[in-house]
């Protein structure tokens, strides 16, 4: 077989990714690849206890080792910091006590990593172990206080919302059902572990080259942590190898690298090991949940009560937002008469939890969709039909005051039903085989910033050089999702130029306008809209220059490909020429645009979490086979439909759907950030924490549906997170369809299936 490969990048007409060639040829430089002359290596000494008082620390032996440049004890930061303004509870290095296994308390810089590790062995820390706190709620019973700075007890936050009279709705319902579920926590497992290089410029500016999704928030938090003015800090992001929410706030290693660099006068690099990443975590919260619904005679959803209890780990992180999100998006898919939500987040002595793809909506969606399936079963209805009757319509307001614009949810249902042959095949697949359905919805960016401010959520700047090149500058971070390519595509389309003219500079607080970061699926919509504004302003300048040159009204200027022309006349000029006319007329060509979402409709406490300029919609049908003898759950095929509005980069849209679906599959089948009774991670490595291999991933059939959304740039909505959510409940529902077992927790490993089947057999025998 002969492989036909293009010989150079220029042979590829339309690249799926503008950074694709650099990545596949190994030329892309990630944070751990960036090297500076005289660079030193940093290493964090981590706690070998889940909960312990630090009795004494002796650094002398480490400090006197040859090749050791700096050894620092906590706290390191001069003020506590945290991503949420109301929860500033972190320091770079623990002092007084450690509150999770692997929490950093010392930082070391040395000539080589080997020396730094040896020095870490040489420090002497005496601990007084304390009882670990591993459970939440009333199961905590007389547990010691985790955060001594956070009031009495370990309840971090309790929130309540109610819209309409839920008690009456449930009381008067024709049919009610209650279900409970435990969703296990899991890690993002980005291929690239976090890495940072920090150095101080001669003029006193601190530069961080860090693998972060949120350079703007890192700059802000670091300024607070170090007591520096924000402009004295520059955060840049090299090529980034995956985030999924795990790199969305300031981390101890980033603060420590800055401090070590100041201390030893050299650039300092810290790269986390895979083990460190599991301790750093900020992954999906483990959540215990309960849902009760009441339906009327026409199977309309009269009332829903939803409760969630989150195991937050040792720090606040995004916890308040995560808690609200576990109650925010249930109403985006279904019309609900009255809705009540109670959420709690508890501190435990485990690595802190935070946002992961689907932030806080993945867990409740799993329970809600499993619950709906069981309601349909109880009522003898087709689960898709039950939902069809109650879908939240396009251009409507949900019971919790969220504005829905376009919705392709009904089309999503139709598409997966059709692709899977649901009507013809369901119930006829044979022993041990089944189909399961679920649907969901997600944000295209949060309606409010994390810290309150009236400024744009995203800013973009366009400059056109005398060379005819288009330079786009925007603070977004391309975390592998294709954000830079989307901006290049939008710039090329809106300015009417070839993609090859566009260069995107992003993720640098020193040179790019602020974008809040790559989280909540906000980048395409928000940075895209900001860019379109900048592009309109630029086109206006070019049109004016062309009109003045040709002495015609601006309305008579037309485009022909890249060229400018005059309507009805034989005048035309190339792009670069017109750009030079414009520069002569107006000076260097630079325009900018910003985007701020409309204010949310809701005025209640907690109304800041949930609103978005546009919602994506998804549906999934899983086809599974359960081997009753060995408990193996084989997902044979997944049918997925997603409404991303206008797909700006169809290949990347497909890639994001596949990536999200496989991540969801891992969460339902095997992934678990789980702990031993002493607080140790069960296995902080890729043999202990298992993710699907290619052999575990079935064929995935995809349908992209929907309409251009009025709030999206050229109609685009999100695709990065939504398609994960329906996969998990679809698989759970398929298992129940296949072998009749109701599952009440994730992940669904073969040992759990065997136990459930065994229990079912015993119940059957007892009857």
């Amino acid at each position, binding site marked *: 077989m002969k492989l036909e490969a293009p010989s150079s990048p220029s042979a590829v007409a339309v690249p799926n990714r503008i950074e694709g060639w650099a990545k596949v040829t190994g030329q892309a430089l990630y944070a751990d690849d960036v090297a500076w002359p005289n660079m030193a290596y940093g290493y964090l000494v*981590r706690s070998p206890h889940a909960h312990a008082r630090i009795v004494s620390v002796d650094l002398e032996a480490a400090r006197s080792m040859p090749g050791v440049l700096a050894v620092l004890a906590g706290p390191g930061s001069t003020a506590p910091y945290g991503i949420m303004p109301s929860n500033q509870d972190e320091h770079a290095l623990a002092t007084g006590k450690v509150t999770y296994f692997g929490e950093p308390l010392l930082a070391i810089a040395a000539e080589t990593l080997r020396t730094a590790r040896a020095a870490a062995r040489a420090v002497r820390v005496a601990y007084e172990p304390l009882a670990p706190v591993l459970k939440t709620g009333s199961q905590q019973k007389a547990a010691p206080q985790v955060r001594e700075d956070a009031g009495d007890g370990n309840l971090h936050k309790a929130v309540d919302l109610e819209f309409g009279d839920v008690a009456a709705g449930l009381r008067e319902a024709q049919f009610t059902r209650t279900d409970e579920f435990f969703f296990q926590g899991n890690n993002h497992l980005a291929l690239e572990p976090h890495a940072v290089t920090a150095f101080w410029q001669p003029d006193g500016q601190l530069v961080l080259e860090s693998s972060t999704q949120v350079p703007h928030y890192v700059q802000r938090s670091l300024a607070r942590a170090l007591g520096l003015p924000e402009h004295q800090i520059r955060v840049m992001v090299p090529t980034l190898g995956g985030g999924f929410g795990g790199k969305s706030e300031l981390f101890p290693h980033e603060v420590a690298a800055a401090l070590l660099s100041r201390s030893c006068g050299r650039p300092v690099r810290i790269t986390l090991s895979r*083990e460190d990443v599991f301790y750093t975590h900020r992954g999906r919260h483990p959540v215990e949940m309960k849902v009760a619904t009441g339906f009327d005679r026409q199977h309309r959803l009269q009332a829903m009560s939803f409760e969630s209890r989150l195991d937050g780990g040792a720090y606040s992180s995004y916890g308040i937002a995560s808690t609200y999100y576990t109650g925010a998006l249930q109403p985006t898919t279904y019309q609900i008469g009255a809705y009540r939500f109670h959420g709690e987040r508890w501190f435990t002595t485990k690595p802190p939890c935070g946002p992961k793809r689907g932030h806080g909506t993945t867990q409740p969606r799993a329970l809600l969709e499993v619950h709906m399936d069981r309601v349909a079963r109880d009522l003898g209805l087709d689960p898709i039909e039950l939902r069809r009757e109650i879908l939240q319509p396009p251009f409507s307001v949900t019971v919790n005051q969220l504005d829905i614009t376009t919705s392709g949810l009904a089309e999503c249902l139709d598409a997966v039903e059709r692709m899977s042959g649901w009507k013809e095949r369901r119930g006829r697949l044979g022993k041990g085989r089944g189909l399961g359905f679920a649907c969901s919805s997600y944000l295209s960016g949060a309606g409010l910033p994390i810290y309150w401010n009236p400024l744009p959520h995203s800013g973009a700047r366009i400059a056109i050089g005398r060379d005819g090149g288009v330079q786009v500058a925007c603070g977004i971070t391309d975390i592998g999702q294709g954000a830079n390519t989307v901006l290049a595509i939008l710039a090329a389309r809106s300015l009417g130029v070839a993609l090859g003219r566009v260069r995107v500079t992003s993720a640098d607080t020193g040179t790019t306008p602020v974008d809040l970061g790559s989280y909540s699926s906000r980048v395409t919509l928000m940075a895209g809209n900001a860019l379109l504004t900048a592009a309109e302003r630029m086109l206006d300048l070019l049109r004016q220059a062309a009109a003045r040159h040709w002495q015609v009204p601006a309305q008579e200027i037309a485009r022909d490909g890249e060229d400018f022309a005059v309507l009805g006349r034989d005048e035309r000029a190339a792009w670069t020429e017109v750009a030079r006319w414009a520069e002569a007329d107006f000076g260097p060509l630079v325009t900018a645009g910003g985007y701020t979402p409309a204010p949310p409709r809701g005025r209640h406490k907690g109304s800041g979490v949930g609103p978005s300029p546009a919602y994506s919609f998804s549906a999934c049908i899983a086809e599974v086979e359960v081997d009753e003898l060995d408990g193996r759950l084989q997902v044979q095929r997944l049918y997925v439909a997603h409404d991303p509005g206008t797909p700006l980069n169809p290949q990347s849209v497909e890639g994001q759907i596949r990536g999200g679906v496989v991540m969801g599959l891992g969460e339902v089948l095997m992934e678990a950030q789980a702990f031993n009774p002493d607080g140790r991670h069960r*296995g*902080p490595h890729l043999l202990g924490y*298992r993710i699907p*291999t290619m052999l575990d991933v079935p064929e995935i059939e995809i349908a992209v549906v929907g309409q251009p959304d009025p709030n999206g740039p050229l109609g685009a909505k999100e695709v990065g997170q939504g398609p994960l959510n329906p996969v998990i409940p679809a698989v759970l529902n398929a298992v129940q369809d296949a072998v009749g077992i109701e599952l009440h927790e994730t992940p669904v490993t073969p040992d759990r299936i065997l136990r459930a089947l065994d229990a079912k057999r015993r119940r059957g025998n007892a009857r």
Partner: protein
Amino acid sequence: MMPLRPLSLTTPSRPEETVAALAAEGAAVLAGGSDLIPGLAWEIPTCDTLVSLAGLDALRRIETEEDGRLRIGAMATLADIVRHPLIRVGYPALADAAQAVGSPELRAQGTLGGNVCLGTRCRFRNQPPLWREALAPCWQSGGEVCHAAPAKETCVAILSGDTVPALVALRAEAEIWGRRPRRLPIEEIYTGDGTHHLHIAPGEFLAALRLPAAPPRAAFRKWRTRASIDFPEANAAVSAVWRDGAWREPVVVVSAVGPAPIRVQAAESLLDGSAWSEERILAAGDLARRAVHPYDNGQLNVAGRQIAVRGLVVRALGDMEMERREPVL
């Protein structure tokens, strides 16, 4: 990047040199290294000299001996085993077991000898150094406690080689080289104590596995979370000879549920001297389930692993009975 601590490595080209090197204090055999080297990054093996067997060419060979036995050198890779025509045709259960190990990369590097001698594994020991730092040392770490089974006086770490049950079922013989070379049935090399799980003394090493000229029919099954990579959470192999209208001399062996393979003699008695009906096969599976008592030191839960053993044995017996009724070849 995980820097390894400095070690010395020697690669003798003559067996006598290998024996001498292995007799020294702190010496350990390096075969394919696919388990040993990652273990070193976690500071698990305590050796300070690695004696590589790569210089002994004879250990790589797979050949038929004069008496018709198949002799597989300990340094034959698992990939060699999977693709060797004599093994695929004559001893397919062994090829299946080798295929079930790790991933293509690990099978290309890992050896049969390494898989047979693979260090026992435990969820409380095969962990990074920080994880073990403040944990009381277990039996295998020179201490006096078992975190998986506090009541046990010895180490119950898991024998995790997939080829082991297949070799036991195939009645393989281990050839040990040392000052006094010796041969013994494969199952006799396992001590049952996870700390020193092999009856192989300092100065000795496993040189080859010898398989009978006329092997019994056999089948292998493995249980784990994923379709590749994972070590077994349980595995099983069965064998028997079909003679005069009945299965004879059955072997039922379950492994990866303790430090040594377990022969399920009750099941063997049940299966001897008859054809295998569905009821008989299910009953044998139940006996296998009752014969194993895994500890909570694997990745999956104890009850599940125990139930799974039933399924593994039933499937393996079913494979053989089906193949007899409808031969593939």
